[in-house]
């Protein structure tokens, strides 16, 4: 039986500042999860991952993370780890959430 593909976003950390980054529909790395490209098929996901792995000057440790379409239309994370990565630490606001 073919397993149903769970939608994904492509994410990594930025080489220089370590920031969490996402691949968007314009073929660029962005910092906002909501702007990430929600990938619906496995072949595209694997192709984009391979492409990210060939960009070591920007992306460190790229991987595909589960995500879903949010009510506002953008991609939203489905696991709490990925949710924390979109915002920054929860002990007090001094990560991405403080820059917004």
């Amino acid at each position: 039986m073919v397993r149903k593909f769970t939608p994904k976003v492509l994410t990594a950390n930025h080489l220089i500042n370590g920031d969490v980054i996402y691949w968007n529909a314009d073929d660029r790395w962005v910092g906002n999860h909501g702007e990430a490209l929600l990938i619906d098929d496995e072949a595209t996901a694997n192709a984009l991952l391979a492409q990210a792995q060939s960009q070591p000057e920007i992306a460190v440790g790229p991987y595909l993370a589960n995500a879903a379409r949010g009510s506002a239309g953008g991609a939203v994370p489905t696991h709490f780890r990925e949710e924390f990565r979109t915002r920054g630490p929860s002990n007090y606001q001094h990560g991405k959430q403080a820059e917004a």
Partner: protein
Amino acid sequence: MYRYNDFDRDFITERNRQFRAQVQRRIDGSLTEDEFRPLRLMNGLYLQLHAYMLRVAIPYGTLNSAKMHKLADIADKWDKGYGHFTTRQNIQYNWPKLTDVPDILDALAEVGMHAIQTSGNCVRNVTADHFAGAAADEIEDPRPSAELLRQWSMDHPEFAFLGRKFKLAVTGSPNDRAVIKAHDVGLILKRNDAGDPGYQVLVGGGLGRTPMIGKVLRDFLPAQDLLPYVESILQIYNFLGRRDNKYKARIKITVHENGIETIRELVEERFKLQRAAFGGNDQKLLAEIKEAFAEPEYTSAPIKAFLDKQNSDAAFRSFTDTNLATHKNPDYNILTISIKAHGKTPGDATSEQMRVMADLAKKYGHDELRISHEQNVILPHVHKGDIPAVYDALREVGLATANIGLISDIIACPGMDYCGLATARSIPVAQKIATRFDELKLEHDIGALKIKISGCINACGHHHVGHIGILGLDRAGVENYQITLGGDGSETAVIGEHAGPGFAYDEIVPTIERLIYAYLDIRESSDETFLQTYRRLGAAPFKSALYPATRIAAE
């Protein structure tokens, strides 16, 4: 305090020069990430959840004011204005940029500091009793031994690629404040019947996914045999330790699988060869090191101001009840500064707080500071007459919380707020517990109690040896917290007992509250600590509090 000689300075300078070039080669594409990762880890640089993290070594937790000032300057110039003190007596910066790290390392080198061997499968930062050289119960100062071990293990070519990381800890007191029995090798300074100095040597302790209490390898090792004996242990571990499975690669597994008798036999056999190879130079070096740890020149002054303030200021009285420890000089105290203000992140100090602590150490503390594995800062030598002034200055910057050893003095690893390995958060759990018990105004009534929280099975938060241990896990995509009871990291060390099914994030504070109310109900008197009550009655009444009948019935 040990001060770098030319050899130390040249070594660090060269290492920093090498790392600067490695960073450059990573950025220009000459090095892949796979090639660069081990190089950055050798220099303490991790890539975590949100950013890079630089772990700076603070050997046996000892600092002076110049070093603390430098740590504050680095926090301001290259990070977000704070640093995080860790359970390895180190400091971590959570937000450095890769391109800034070479400059940070150069800045550290200016005050004789570095980040080498704070990661990787090597001998890590040597830790020690944070009251070393000051405690009234101390038999021998452990810092010279720790410094000797630091110098021996620094860039030791034979031990740069061990099967797994290797942690050493030393104490000179019978009351263990350094979790000696949870280390790969733990050393307890003692004297034999003839009065000669030496060490009890323990091996194979550790926490993580397979927690174990260290076993006695040698009950009395003459002091002069320290390095050849420890080197023999490392050699046997390097030879015998498993490399097929990283979860079975620590020496605790080697000892467990081979038996302590076999390990002892092999180490002793190896030691006969190693001993001859050292030839006494290590002892000459140790004698030089000892000179650097001479006692401070204690002052004699009136203590009336201290006594008067104790009688007139209830908050000060409370602070002195919890945050002072007995010094070997009766006119002095060891003063612990709590980095655990209620609701704040355990171990986080702002650059301003660091500077205040540095200045207080300089003015009132014989220029010494210590970092404890419990993530607090210690002024080891404060004359009683100066304590009111120190307290007033600490209050100004939110550092006068009177909670040392109490329920809000919680060890918490960075957890999923920062750490790439974590499976759940730990810091917010500590914040909520501390805030709740501060609201209840119960913590002084509860008395001595150690809660330790880890955000994954690697147990950086020492949860196995917490009187109450909390372990955060990912259960089907939801944070879930398991509780262990009755753990102890002291000289009577024991691994806590797993209590049962875990609790959701929102349930953990009320759960701890139930547990504490049960303890208050069943203790014999207010003098009986949580751990004593647990040892007297066992887990049953505590489990009943954790899992009330309604919950058990529902399951």
